Protein backbone atom coordinates (compact mmCIF):
# COMPACT_ATOMS: atom_id res chain seq x y z
CA UNK A 1 0.00 0.00 0.00
CA UNK A 2 2.81 2.39 0.84
CA UNK A 3 4.30 1.80 -2.60
CA UNK A 4 1.05 2.95 -4.20
CA UNK A 5 0.92 5.98 -1.91
CA UNK A 6 4.52 6.87 -2.71
CA UNK A 7 3.96 6.39 -6.43
CA UNK A 8 0.87 8.53 -6.32
CA UNK A 9 2.68 11.31 -4.46
CA UNK A 10 5.47 11.33 -7.02
CA UNK A 11 2.92 11.38 -9.82
CA UNK A 12 0.99 14.16 -8.13
CA UNK A 13 4.13 16.17 -7.51
CA UNK A 14 5.13 16.01 -11.15
CA UNK A 15 1.61 16.91 -12.24
CA UNK A 16 1.53 19.94 -9.96
CA UNK A 17 4.95 21.08 -11.03
CA UNK A 18 3.98 20.88 -14.66
CA UNK A 19 0.68 22.63 -14.12
CA UNK A 20 2.32 25.48 -12.27
CA UNK A 21 4.83 25.96 -15.06
CA UNK A 22 2.60 25.06 -17.93
CA UNK A 23 0.56 28.21 -18.27
CA UNK A 24 -2.98 28.12 -19.41
CA UNK A 25 -4.54 24.82 -20.29
CA UNK A 26 -8.19 23.95 -20.30
CA UNK A 27 -8.25 21.51 -17.43
CA UNK A 28 -11.96 21.16 -17.55
CA UNK A 29 -11.45 19.07 -20.64
CA UNK A 30 -14.03 21.23 -22.38
CA UNK A 31 -15.79 17.98 -23.01
CA UNK A 32 -19.06 19.74 -22.56
CA UNK A 33 -18.96 21.73 -25.74
CA UNK A 34 -16.59 23.70 -27.83
CA UNK A 35 -15.72 27.25 -26.97
CA UNK A 36 -15.28 28.33 -30.56
CA UNK A 37 -18.57 30.20 -30.82
CA UNK A 38 -18.06 33.93 -30.72
CA UNK A 39 -21.39 35.35 -29.87
CA UNK A 40 -22.61 32.80 -27.44
CA UNK A 41 -19.80 31.72 -25.19
CA UNK A 42 -20.31 28.07 -24.35
CA UNK A 43 -20.75 27.07 -20.78
CA UNK A 44 -17.08 26.29 -20.29
CA UNK A 45 -15.44 29.18 -22.08
CA UNK A 46 -12.82 30.02 -19.49
CA UNK A 47 -11.06 33.31 -18.89
CA UNK A 48 -10.59 33.93 -22.59
CA UNK A 49 -14.07 35.38 -23.03
CA UNK A 50 -13.62 38.68 -21.25
CA UNK A 51 -10.16 39.25 -22.64
CA UNK A 52 -11.61 42.33 -24.28
CA UNK A 53 -12.86 43.48 -20.94
CA UNK A 54 -9.59 43.38 -19.05
CA UNK A 55 -8.04 46.66 -17.98
Amino acid sequence: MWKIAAGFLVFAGIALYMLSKGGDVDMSGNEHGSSTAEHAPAALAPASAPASASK
Partner: protein
Amino acid sequence: MATAAAPRPMSEGEKMVIFASSLGTIFEWYDFYLFGVMSAIIAANFFSALDESTRNIFVLLAFAAGFAVRPFGALVFGRLGDMIGRKYTFLITILIMGLSTFLVAFLPTYKTAGIIAPIALIALRMFQGLALGGEYGGAATYVAEHAPHGRRGFYTSWIQTTATVGLMLALMVILGTRTYFGEKDFADWAWRIPYAMSGILLAISVWIRLKLNESPAFAKMKSEGKTSKAPLSESFGQWKNAKIVIFALLGLTAGQAVVWYGGQFYTLFFLQTFLRIDGPTANVLIAVSLILGTPFFVFFGAWSDKIGRKPIIMAGCLLAVLTYFPLFGALTTYGNPKLQQAIQKSPVTVVADAGSCNLILNLTGTAKFTTPCDLARVYLSNSGVNYDSVAQPGAVANVKVGDKSIASYDGAAPNAKDEKARFEKEVRAALNEAGYPAKADPIPVGSSNWLMLVLILTILVVYVTMVYGPVAAMLVEMFPTRIRYTSMSLPYHIGNGWFGGFLPAISFSIVAAQGNIYSGLWYPIIIAGMTFVIGMIMVKETKDVDIYAND
Protein backbone atom coordinates in the same frame (compact mmCIF):
# COMPACT_ATOMS: atom_id res chain seq x y z
CA MET B 1 -26.80 -14.19 4.10
CA ALA B 2 -23.03 -14.06 3.90
CA THR B 3 -21.19 -12.43 6.77
CA ALA B 4 -18.47 -9.88 6.31
CA ALA B 5 -15.19 -11.62 5.54
CA ALA B 6 -12.37 -11.22 8.04
CA PRO B 7 -10.00 -8.92 6.18
CA ARG B 8 -7.32 -11.14 4.70
CA PRO B 9 -4.55 -9.60 2.62
CA MET B 10 -5.18 -9.28 -1.11
CA SER B 11 -3.92 -12.24 -3.08
CA GLU B 12 -1.49 -11.67 -5.94
CA GLY B 13 -4.17 -12.67 -8.39
CA GLU B 14 -6.56 -10.13 -6.94
CA LYS B 15 -3.93 -7.39 -7.04
CA MET B 16 -3.37 -8.20 -10.70
CA VAL B 17 -7.09 -7.99 -11.40
CA ILE B 18 -7.41 -4.58 -9.79
CA PHE B 19 -4.19 -3.30 -11.32
CA ALA B 20 -5.03 -4.47 -14.84
CA SER B 21 -8.57 -3.16 -14.73
CA SER B 22 -7.62 0.19 -13.22
CA LEU B 23 -4.65 0.78 -15.48
CA GLY B 24 -6.70 0.15 -18.57
CA THR B 25 -9.45 2.43 -17.32
CA ILE B 26 -6.92 5.17 -16.56
CA PHE B 27 -5.70 4.94 -20.13
CA GLU B 28 -9.25 5.06 -21.43
CA TRP B 29 -9.88 8.25 -19.46
CA TYR B 30 -6.55 9.63 -20.70
CA ASP B 31 -7.66 9.01 -24.29
CA PHE B 32 -11.03 10.55 -23.62
CA TYR B 33 -9.67 13.67 -21.93
CA LEU B 34 -7.07 14.34 -24.62
CA PHE B 35 -9.78 15.41 -26.96
CA GLY B 36 -11.36 17.79 -24.48
CA VAL B 37 -8.21 19.40 -23.10
CA MET B 38 -6.89 20.07 -26.59
CA SER B 39 -10.25 21.06 -28.03
CA ALA B 40 -9.05 24.52 -29.09
CA ILE B 41 -6.26 23.04 -31.20
CA ILE B 42 -8.57 20.38 -32.59
CA ALA B 43 -11.09 23.04 -33.52
CA ALA B 44 -8.42 25.17 -35.17
CA ASN B 45 -7.11 22.27 -37.26
CA PHE B 46 -10.35 20.59 -38.17
CA PHE B 47 -13.35 22.86 -37.78
CA SER B 48 -12.56 26.52 -38.02
CA ALA B 49 -12.18 26.66 -41.78
CA LEU B 50 -15.69 25.32 -42.27
CA ASP B 51 -18.60 27.63 -42.93
CA GLU B 52 -20.56 28.41 -39.86
CA SER B 53 -23.50 26.07 -40.11
CA THR B 54 -21.31 23.13 -41.05
CA ARG B 55 -18.94 23.98 -38.25
CA ASN B 56 -21.83 24.08 -35.82
CA ILE B 57 -22.98 20.66 -36.91
CA PHE B 58 -19.53 19.22 -36.36
CA VAL B 59 -19.17 20.90 -32.99
CA LEU B 60 -22.53 19.45 -32.05
CA LEU B 61 -21.47 16.03 -33.21
CA ALA B 62 -18.18 16.24 -31.32
CA PHE B 63 -20.06 17.06 -28.16
CA ALA B 64 -22.61 14.32 -28.79
CA ALA B 65 -19.87 11.84 -29.49
CA GLY B 66 -18.28 12.46 -26.15
CA PHE B 67 -21.39 12.42 -24.03
CA ALA B 68 -24.67 11.58 -25.62
CA VAL B 69 -23.26 8.45 -27.22
CA ARG B 70 -21.97 6.84 -24.03
CA PRO B 71 -25.22 5.12 -23.01
CA PHE B 72 -25.36 3.50 -26.44
CA GLY B 73 -21.89 2.13 -25.87
CA ALA B 74 -23.18 0.88 -22.54
CA LEU B 75 -25.95 -1.01 -24.30
CA VAL B 76 -23.77 -2.51 -27.03
CA PHE B 77 -20.90 -3.60 -24.85
CA GLY B 78 -22.97 -4.36 -21.80
CA ARG B 79 -24.89 -6.84 -23.89
CA LEU B 80 -21.70 -8.29 -25.33
CA GLY B 81 -20.16 -8.56 -21.87
CA ASP B 82 -23.11 -10.48 -20.52
CA MET B 83 -23.16 -12.78 -23.52
CA ILE B 84 -19.50 -13.54 -24.25
CA GLY B 85 -17.79 -12.48 -21.05
CA ARG B 86 -16.21 -9.55 -19.26
CA LYS B 87 -12.62 -10.21 -20.19
CA TYR B 88 -13.08 -10.20 -23.95
CA THR B 89 -15.49 -7.33 -23.96
CA PHE B 90 -13.31 -4.99 -22.10
CA LEU B 91 -10.40 -6.04 -24.22
CA ILE B 92 -12.48 -4.94 -27.18
CA THR B 93 -13.39 -1.62 -25.56
CA ILE B 94 -9.80 -0.77 -24.83
CA LEU B 95 -8.75 -1.73 -28.34
CA ILE B 96 -11.42 0.50 -29.83
CA MET B 97 -10.59 3.38 -27.52
CA GLY B 98 -6.85 3.03 -27.97
CA LEU B 99 -6.94 2.64 -31.72
CA SER B 100 -9.34 5.50 -32.32
CA THR B 101 -7.15 7.76 -30.19
CA PHE B 102 -3.95 6.57 -31.81
CA LEU B 103 -5.35 7.16 -35.28
CA VAL B 104 -6.13 10.81 -34.50
CA ALA B 105 -2.35 11.34 -34.40
CA PHE B 106 -2.19 10.53 -38.09
CA LEU B 107 -5.25 12.33 -39.34
CA PRO B 108 -4.73 14.94 -42.02
CA THR B 109 -6.07 18.36 -41.11
CA TYR B 110 -8.79 20.22 -42.95
CA LYS B 111 -6.12 22.17 -44.83
CA THR B 112 -4.74 18.98 -46.36
CA ALA B 113 -7.75 16.77 -46.79
CA GLY B 114 -10.80 18.99 -46.80
CA ILE B 115 -14.08 17.84 -45.34
CA ILE B 116 -12.85 14.26 -44.91
CA ALA B 117 -10.69 15.42 -42.00
CA PRO B 118 -13.42 16.56 -39.61
CA ILE B 119 -15.63 13.67 -40.65
CA ALA B 120 -12.90 11.19 -39.80
CA LEU B 121 -12.23 12.97 -36.51
CA ILE B 122 -15.86 12.87 -35.45
CA ALA B 123 -16.07 9.20 -36.39
CA LEU B 124 -13.09 8.46 -34.17
CA ARG B 125 -14.55 10.54 -31.34
CA MET B 126 -17.79 8.57 -31.61
CA PHE B 127 -15.84 5.36 -31.22
CA GLN B 128 -14.22 6.81 -28.13
CA GLY B 129 -17.62 7.62 -26.65
CA LEU B 130 -18.94 4.16 -27.43
CA ALA B 131 -15.85 2.48 -26.02
CA LEU B 132 -16.01 4.49 -22.82
CA GLY B 133 -19.64 3.49 -22.52
CA GLY B 134 -18.50 -0.11 -22.45
CA GLU B 135 -15.35 0.19 -20.42
CA TYR B 136 -16.48 1.31 -17.02
CA GLY B 137 -19.21 -1.28 -16.52
CA GLY B 138 -16.77 -3.98 -17.57
CA ALA B 139 -13.97 -2.88 -15.27
CA ALA B 140 -16.24 -2.45 -12.26
CA THR B 141 -18.06 -5.74 -12.85
CA TYR B 142 -14.84 -7.61 -13.47
CA VAL B 143 -13.18 -6.39 -10.27
CA ALA B 144 -16.32 -6.82 -8.18
CA GLU B 145 -16.73 -10.41 -9.31
CA HIS B 146 -13.21 -11.17 -8.10
CA ALA B 147 -13.57 -9.46 -4.76
CA PRO B 148 -14.28 -11.49 -1.63
CA HIS B 149 -17.59 -10.79 -0.03
CA GLY B 150 -17.29 -7.91 2.38
CA ARG B 151 -14.45 -6.23 0.50
CA ARG B 152 -16.15 -5.31 -2.74
CA GLY B 153 -16.31 -1.63 -1.91
CA PHE B 154 -12.59 -1.48 -1.18
CA TYR B 155 -11.62 -3.47 -4.25
CA THR B 156 -13.76 -1.51 -6.70
CA SER B 157 -12.86 1.86 -5.20
CA TRP B 158 -9.52 1.69 -7.03
CA ILE B 159 -11.41 1.87 -10.32
CA GLN B 160 -13.10 4.98 -8.98
CA THR B 161 -9.80 6.85 -8.84
CA THR B 162 -9.11 6.33 -12.51
CA ALA B 163 -11.02 9.27 -14.01
CA THR B 164 -9.08 11.72 -11.88
CA VAL B 165 -5.74 9.99 -12.47
CA GLY B 166 -6.46 9.76 -16.21
CA LEU B 167 -7.14 13.48 -16.36
CA MET B 168 -3.86 14.26 -14.56
CA LEU B 169 -1.97 11.97 -16.91
CA ALA B 170 -3.49 13.67 -19.96
CA LEU B 171 -2.58 17.08 -18.60
CA MET B 172 0.98 16.04 -17.84
CA VAL B 173 1.56 14.60 -21.28
CA ILE B 174 0.02 17.61 -23.00
CA LEU B 175 1.86 20.16 -20.90
CA GLY B 176 5.12 18.25 -21.15
CA THR B 177 4.89 18.05 -24.93
CA ARG B 178 3.87 21.69 -25.20
CA THR B 179 6.71 22.89 -22.98
CA TYR B 180 9.28 20.74 -24.75
CA PHE B 181 8.34 21.73 -28.30
CA GLY B 182 7.14 25.25 -27.66
CA GLU B 183 3.75 26.75 -28.43
CA LYS B 184 4.24 27.14 -32.16
CA ASP B 185 5.41 23.62 -32.93
CA PHE B 186 2.82 22.25 -30.54
CA ALA B 187 0.02 24.02 -32.38
CA ASP B 188 1.47 22.99 -35.75
CA TRP B 189 2.17 19.31 -35.34
CA ALA B 190 3.39 18.31 -31.88
CA TRP B 191 -0.23 18.16 -30.63
CA ARG B 192 -0.28 14.79 -32.33
CA ILE B 193 2.27 13.34 -29.94
CA PRO B 194 -0.04 12.81 -26.93
CA TYR B 195 -2.36 10.95 -29.29
CA ALA B 196 0.43 8.84 -30.66
CA MET B 197 1.53 7.99 -27.12
CA SER B 198 -1.81 6.36 -26.68
CA GLY B 199 -0.51 3.57 -28.89
CA ILE B 200 2.08 2.67 -26.26
CA LEU B 201 -0.52 2.82 -23.50
CA LEU B 202 -2.79 0.62 -25.59
CA ALA B 203 -0.07 -1.97 -26.13
CA ILE B 204 0.61 -2.11 -22.38
CA SER B 205 -3.10 -2.40 -21.52
CA VAL B 206 -3.78 -5.12 -24.06
CA TRP B 207 -0.72 -7.10 -22.96
CA ILE B 208 -1.78 -6.93 -19.34
CA ARG B 209 -5.43 -7.68 -20.01
CA LEU B 210 -4.62 -10.68 -22.17
CA LYS B 211 -3.02 -12.27 -19.11
CA LEU B 212 -6.26 -12.11 -17.17
CA ASN B 213 -8.77 -14.88 -16.72
CA GLU B 214 -12.46 -14.47 -17.16
CA SER B 215 -14.33 -13.53 -13.98
CA PRO B 216 -15.10 -16.73 -12.04
CA ALA B 217 -18.77 -15.81 -11.71
CA PHE B 218 -19.19 -15.46 -15.44
CA ALA B 219 -17.07 -18.52 -16.19
CA LYS B 220 -19.21 -20.61 -13.87
CA MET B 221 -22.39 -19.26 -15.43
CA LYS B 222 -21.09 -20.04 -18.90
CA SER B 223 -20.07 -23.59 -18.01
CA GLU B 224 -23.53 -24.19 -16.57
CA GLY B 225 -25.14 -22.78 -19.70
CA LYS B 226 -26.95 -20.10 -17.72
CA THR B 227 -25.76 -17.00 -19.56
CA SER B 228 -28.40 -14.68 -20.91
CA LYS B 229 -29.32 -14.96 -24.58
CA ALA B 230 -30.98 -11.56 -24.57
CA PRO B 231 -29.50 -9.34 -21.88
CA LEU B 232 -31.14 -6.20 -23.23
CA SER B 233 -34.66 -7.48 -23.02
CA GLU B 234 -33.98 -9.16 -19.70
CA SER B 235 -32.49 -5.98 -18.30
CA PHE B 236 -34.97 -3.47 -19.57
CA GLY B 237 -37.88 -5.39 -20.99
CA GLN B 238 -38.87 -6.97 -17.70
CA TRP B 239 -40.29 -4.55 -15.17
CA LYS B 240 -38.79 -6.45 -12.25
CA ASN B 241 -35.30 -5.45 -13.40
CA ALA B 242 -36.15 -2.32 -15.34
CA LYS B 243 -37.46 -0.64 -12.22
CA ILE B 244 -34.17 -1.28 -10.44
CA VAL B 245 -32.36 0.27 -13.40
CA ILE B 246 -34.58 3.34 -13.12
CA PHE B 247 -33.97 3.61 -9.38
CA ALA B 248 -30.25 3.13 -9.97
CA LEU B 249 -30.39 6.13 -12.28
CA LEU B 250 -32.67 8.49 -10.38
CA GLY B 251 -31.78 7.32 -6.89
CA LEU B 252 -28.07 6.89 -7.37
CA THR B 253 -26.15 7.88 -10.50
CA ALA B 254 -27.96 11.11 -11.39
CA GLY B 255 -27.09 12.66 -8.04
CA GLN B 256 -23.67 11.07 -8.07
CA ALA B 257 -22.98 12.58 -11.49
CA VAL B 258 -23.99 16.14 -10.64
CA VAL B 259 -21.95 16.06 -7.44
CA TRP B 260 -19.02 14.65 -9.42
CA TYR B 261 -19.22 17.39 -12.04
CA GLY B 262 -20.04 20.01 -9.43
CA GLY B 263 -16.96 19.21 -7.40
CA GLN B 264 -14.49 18.44 -10.17
CA PHE B 265 -15.26 20.68 -13.12
CA TYR B 266 -17.89 23.26 -12.24
CA THR B 267 -15.59 24.57 -9.50
CA LEU B 268 -12.89 25.24 -12.08
CA PHE B 269 -15.35 27.02 -14.30
CA PHE B 270 -16.64 29.04 -11.34
CA LEU B 271 -13.15 30.09 -10.27
CA GLN B 272 -12.18 31.25 -13.74
CA THR B 273 -15.37 32.69 -15.18
CA PHE B 274 -17.12 34.12 -12.16
CA LEU B 275 -14.26 34.82 -9.79
CA ARG B 276 -11.92 35.91 -12.60
CA ILE B 277 -9.02 33.91 -11.22
CA ASP B 278 -6.33 33.35 -13.85
CA GLY B 279 -6.06 29.96 -15.54
CA PRO B 280 -2.79 28.69 -14.09
CA THR B 281 -3.72 29.63 -10.50
CA ALA B 282 -7.13 28.03 -10.83
CA ASN B 283 -5.66 24.91 -12.43
CA VAL B 284 -3.20 24.43 -9.60
CA LEU B 285 -5.86 25.01 -6.95
CA ILE B 286 -8.13 22.41 -8.51
CA ALA B 287 -5.25 19.98 -9.06
CA VAL B 288 -4.16 20.24 -5.42
CA SER B 289 -7.71 19.60 -4.22
CA LEU B 290 -8.04 16.61 -6.55
CA ILE B 291 -4.75 15.18 -5.34
CA LEU B 292 -5.70 15.65 -1.69
CA GLY B 293 -9.13 14.20 -2.32
CA THR B 294 -8.22 11.18 -4.45
CA PRO B 295 -7.24 8.86 -1.57
CA PHE B 296 -10.76 9.34 -0.20
CA PHE B 297 -12.22 7.32 -3.09
CA VAL B 298 -10.51 4.30 -1.59
CA PHE B 299 -11.30 5.35 1.98
CA PHE B 300 -15.03 5.66 1.39
CA GLY B 301 -15.14 2.56 -0.79
CA ALA B 302 -13.52 0.61 2.02
CA TRP B 303 -15.67 2.21 4.71
CA SER B 304 -18.80 1.37 2.74
CA ASP B 305 -17.92 -2.28 3.29
CA LYS B 306 -18.38 -1.69 7.01
CA ILE B 307 -21.23 0.79 7.31
CA GLY B 308 -23.00 0.40 4.00
CA ARG B 309 -22.96 2.06 0.60
CA LYS B 310 -26.18 4.00 1.00
CA PRO B 311 -25.25 6.04 4.07
CA ILE B 312 -22.11 7.37 2.42
CA ILE B 313 -23.59 8.07 -1.01
CA MET B 314 -26.74 9.63 0.42
CA ALA B 315 -24.72 11.69 2.88
CA GLY B 316 -22.61 12.99 -0.01
CA CYS B 317 -25.74 14.04 -1.89
CA LEU B 318 -27.28 15.64 1.19
CA LEU B 319 -24.12 17.52 2.10
CA ALA B 320 -23.97 18.88 -1.44
CA VAL B 321 -27.57 20.05 -1.23
CA LEU B 322 -27.08 21.73 2.14
CA THR B 323 -23.64 23.24 1.72
CA TYR B 324 -23.05 24.09 -1.94
CA PHE B 325 -24.28 27.68 -1.56
CA PRO B 326 -22.20 28.51 1.53
CA LEU B 327 -19.13 26.74 0.13
CA PHE B 328 -19.23 28.51 -3.21
CA GLY B 329 -19.90 31.77 -1.38
CA ALA B 330 -16.76 31.08 0.62
CA LEU B 331 -14.85 30.54 -2.63
CA THR B 332 -15.77 34.12 -3.55
CA THR B 333 -14.75 35.43 -0.14
CA TYR B 334 -11.25 33.98 -0.42
CA GLY B 335 -10.87 33.96 -4.18
CA ASN B 336 -12.01 37.45 -5.06
CA PRO B 337 -12.95 39.45 -1.96
CA LYS B 338 -13.17 42.70 -3.95
CA LEU B 339 -15.85 41.16 -6.14
CA GLN B 340 -17.85 40.20 -3.11
CA GLN B 341 -17.66 43.73 -1.76
CA ALA B 342 -18.63 45.25 -5.09
CA ILE B 343 -21.65 42.94 -5.38
CA GLN B 344 -22.82 44.13 -1.98
CA LYS B 345 -22.11 47.83 -2.48
CA SER B 346 -22.99 48.47 -6.14
CA PRO B 347 -25.44 45.92 -7.46
CA VAL B 348 -25.87 45.57 -11.19
CA THR B 349 -29.28 45.30 -12.83
CA VAL B 350 -30.41 44.47 -16.34
CA VAL B 351 -33.56 46.38 -17.18
CA ALA B 352 -35.49 45.06 -20.16
CA ASP B 353 -38.83 44.19 -21.60
CA ALA B 354 -39.31 40.56 -20.54
CA GLY B 355 -40.52 39.66 -24.01
CA SER B 356 -37.13 40.32 -25.50
CA CYS B 357 -35.31 38.05 -23.08
CA ASN B 358 -34.90 34.44 -24.18
CA LEU B 359 -33.70 31.30 -22.53
CA ILE B 360 -29.93 31.23 -22.67
CA LEU B 361 -29.10 27.60 -23.17
CA ASN B 362 -25.93 26.89 -25.05
CA LEU B 363 -25.52 23.15 -24.80
CA THR B 364 -22.80 22.80 -27.36
CA GLY B 365 -21.39 26.28 -27.83
CA THR B 366 -23.15 26.91 -31.09
CA ALA B 367 -26.14 28.96 -30.00
CA LYS B 368 -26.34 32.56 -31.14
CA PHE B 369 -27.99 35.31 -29.18
CA THR B 370 -29.05 38.58 -30.78
CA THR B 371 -31.57 40.51 -28.69
CA PRO B 372 -30.19 43.36 -26.57
CA CYS B 373 -31.45 41.67 -23.42
CA ASP B 374 -29.77 38.35 -24.23
CA LEU B 375 -26.51 39.92 -25.29
CA ALA B 376 -26.35 42.04 -22.17
CA ARG B 377 -26.94 39.04 -19.93
CA VAL B 378 -24.51 36.78 -21.74
CA TYR B 379 -21.82 39.42 -21.53
CA LEU B 380 -22.39 40.02 -17.85
CA SER B 381 -22.56 36.31 -17.00
CA ASN B 382 -19.45 35.56 -18.93
CA SER B 383 -17.71 38.41 -17.16
CA GLY B 384 -18.70 36.90 -13.86
CA VAL B 385 -20.89 39.84 -12.92
CA ASN B 386 -23.72 39.25 -10.52
CA TYR B 387 -26.92 41.02 -11.56
CA ASP B 388 -30.63 41.24 -11.00
CA SER B 389 -33.12 41.29 -13.83
CA VAL B 390 -35.79 43.97 -13.73
CA ALA B 391 -38.69 43.68 -16.13
CA GLN B 392 -39.88 46.94 -17.58
CA PRO B 393 -42.39 46.65 -20.41
CA GLY B 394 -41.28 48.54 -23.48
CA ALA B 395 -37.80 49.25 -22.16
CA VAL B 396 -34.81 48.98 -24.45
CA ALA B 397 -32.48 46.67 -22.61
CA ASN B 398 -29.88 48.48 -20.57
CA VAL B 399 -27.43 47.66 -17.85
CA LYS B 400 -27.40 49.72 -14.67
CA VAL B 401 -24.29 49.76 -12.54
CA GLY B 402 -25.01 51.76 -9.44
CA ASP B 403 -26.64 54.84 -10.98
CA LYS B 404 -24.97 54.57 -14.41
CA SER B 405 -27.06 53.22 -17.24
CA ILE B 406 -25.61 51.68 -20.44
CA ALA B 407 -27.80 50.76 -23.39
CA SER B 408 -27.35 47.30 -24.80
CA TYR B 409 -27.22 46.60 -28.54
CA ASP B 410 -28.99 44.63 -31.24
CA GLY B 411 -26.86 41.73 -32.43
CA ALA B 412 -28.68 41.60 -35.74
CA ALA B 413 -28.19 45.26 -36.64
CA PRO B 414 -25.59 46.17 -39.31
CA ASN B 415 -23.48 48.10 -36.82
CA ALA B 416 -23.59 45.30 -34.25
CA LYS B 417 -19.84 44.83 -34.14
CA ASP B 418 -19.15 48.48 -33.32
CA GLU B 419 -22.02 48.59 -30.90
CA LYS B 420 -20.72 45.48 -29.17
CA ALA B 421 -17.36 47.13 -28.65
CA ARG B 422 -19.05 50.29 -27.38
CA PHE B 423 -21.30 48.39 -25.01
CA GLU B 424 -18.54 46.26 -23.57
CA LYS B 425 -16.22 49.22 -23.13
CA GLU B 426 -18.85 51.28 -21.33
CA VAL B 427 -20.00 48.46 -19.11
CA ARG B 428 -16.43 47.59 -18.21
CA ALA B 429 -15.69 51.24 -17.35
CA ALA B 430 -18.78 51.45 -15.16
CA LEU B 431 -17.90 48.20 -13.44
CA ASN B 432 -14.36 49.36 -12.79
CA GLU B 433 -15.64 52.57 -11.30
CA ALA B 434 -17.98 50.64 -9.05
CA GLY B 435 -15.10 48.48 -7.80
CA TYR B 436 -15.76 45.31 -9.78
CA PRO B 437 -12.37 43.78 -10.53
CA ALA B 438 -11.77 42.64 -14.11
CA LYS B 439 -9.41 40.04 -12.72
CA ALA B 440 -8.97 38.63 -9.28
CA ASP B 441 -5.96 39.82 -7.34
CA PRO B 442 -3.10 37.33 -7.51
CA ILE B 443 -3.33 34.60 -4.90
CA PRO B 444 0.20 33.55 -3.93
CA VAL B 445 0.69 29.84 -3.33
CA GLY B 446 0.67 29.18 0.41
CA SER B 447 -1.03 32.46 1.35
CA SER B 448 -3.95 32.21 3.74
CA ASN B 449 -6.47 32.84 0.94
CA TRP B 450 -4.84 30.15 -1.15
CA LEU B 451 -4.95 27.67 1.71
CA MET B 452 -8.59 28.44 2.42
CA LEU B 453 -9.45 27.94 -1.23
CA VAL B 454 -7.65 24.60 -1.21
CA LEU B 455 -9.59 23.61 1.90
CA ILE B 456 -12.97 24.50 0.40
CA LEU B 457 -12.18 22.87 -2.92
CA THR B 458 -10.95 19.73 -1.16
CA ILE B 459 -14.19 19.54 0.80
CA LEU B 460 -16.04 19.67 -2.50
CA VAL B 461 -13.85 16.87 -3.85
CA VAL B 462 -14.48 14.82 -0.72
CA TYR B 463 -18.19 15.00 -1.52
CA VAL B 464 -17.28 13.64 -4.95
CA THR B 465 -15.43 10.75 -3.33
CA MET B 466 -18.37 10.04 -1.03
CA VAL B 467 -20.83 9.64 -3.87
CA TYR B 468 -18.45 7.99 -6.30
CA GLY B 469 -16.21 5.77 -4.15
CA PRO B 470 -18.85 3.16 -3.20
CA VAL B 471 -21.03 3.47 -6.29
CA ALA B 472 -19.29 0.83 -8.43
CA ALA B 473 -19.84 -1.84 -5.78
CA MET B 474 -23.41 -0.72 -5.26
CA LEU B 475 -24.30 -0.85 -8.95
CA VAL B 476 -22.76 -4.32 -9.25
CA GLU B 477 -24.70 -5.55 -6.24
CA MET B 478 -28.03 -4.37 -7.59
CA PHE B 479 -28.11 -6.82 -10.51
CA PRO B 480 -27.67 -10.57 -11.08
CA THR B 481 -24.55 -11.83 -12.86
CA ARG B 482 -26.32 -12.76 -16.09
CA ILE B 483 -27.37 -9.17 -16.86
CA ARG B 484 -25.04 -7.24 -14.61
CA TYR B 485 -22.78 -5.62 -17.21
CA THR B 486 -25.79 -4.44 -19.23
CA SER B 487 -27.92 -3.31 -16.31
CA MET B 488 -25.31 -1.32 -14.44
CA SER B 489 -23.68 0.33 -17.45
CA LEU B 490 -26.77 2.09 -18.70
CA PRO B 491 -27.80 4.04 -15.58
CA TYR B 492 -24.15 4.89 -14.97
CA HIS B 493 -23.67 6.42 -18.41
CA ILE B 494 -27.05 8.12 -18.59
CA GLY B 495 -26.37 9.60 -15.17
CA ASN B 496 -22.84 10.68 -15.90
CA GLY B 497 -23.13 11.27 -19.63
CA TRP B 498 -26.42 13.15 -19.65
CA PHE B 499 -27.30 14.46 -16.17
CA GLY B 500 -23.65 15.20 -15.47
CA GLY B 501 -22.48 16.06 -18.96
CA PHE B 502 -25.09 18.74 -19.41
CA LEU B 503 -24.42 20.32 -16.02
CA PRO B 504 -22.13 23.11 -17.24
CA ALA B 505 -24.52 24.22 -19.97
CA ILE B 506 -27.60 24.01 -17.77
CA SER B 507 -25.92 25.73 -14.84
CA PHE B 508 -24.62 28.53 -17.01
CA SER B 509 -28.06 28.91 -18.54
CA ILE B 510 -29.57 29.39 -15.10
CA VAL B 511 -26.91 31.95 -14.18
CA ALA B 512 -27.49 33.85 -17.40
CA ALA B 513 -31.22 33.87 -16.80
CA GLN B 514 -31.08 34.72 -13.11
CA GLY B 515 -28.02 36.90 -12.99
CA ASN B 516 -26.90 35.53 -9.68
CA ILE B 517 -23.53 33.81 -10.04
CA TYR B 518 -24.53 31.13 -7.55
CA SER B 519 -27.84 30.29 -9.14
CA GLY B 520 -26.20 27.71 -11.41
CA LEU B 521 -25.85 25.58 -8.31
CA TRP B 522 -29.59 25.00 -8.30
CA TYR B 523 -29.25 22.35 -10.97
CA PRO B 524 -26.87 20.03 -9.07
CA ILE B 525 -28.72 20.79 -5.85
CA ILE B 526 -32.10 19.83 -7.25
CA ILE B 527 -30.79 16.69 -8.94
CA ALA B 528 -28.79 15.62 -5.88
CA GLY B 529 -31.84 16.35 -3.76
CA MET B 530 -33.99 14.21 -6.03
CA THR B 531 -31.48 11.39 -5.78
CA PHE B 532 -31.38 11.72 -2.01
CA VAL B 533 -35.15 11.40 -1.71
CA ILE B 534 -35.59 8.62 -4.26
CA GLY B 535 -32.47 6.83 -3.07
CA MET B 536 -33.47 6.88 0.58
CA ILE B 537 -36.95 5.57 -0.18
CA MET B 538 -36.54 3.27 -3.14
CA VAL B 539 -32.94 2.01 -3.23
CA LYS B 540 -32.03 -0.80 -0.87
CA GLU B 541 -28.69 -1.15 0.88
CA THR B 542 -26.60 -3.68 -0.98
CA LYS B 543 -23.35 -4.27 0.89
CA ASP B 544 -24.47 -7.60 2.30
CA VAL B 545 -25.94 -8.86 -0.93
CA ASP B 546 -24.64 -12.17 -2.14
CA ILE B 547 -23.99 -11.21 -5.74
CA TYR B 548 -24.25 -14.83 -6.85
CA ALA B 549 -27.51 -15.59 -5.10
CA ASN B 550 -29.65 -15.20 -8.20
CA ASP B 551 -27.27 -16.98 -10.57
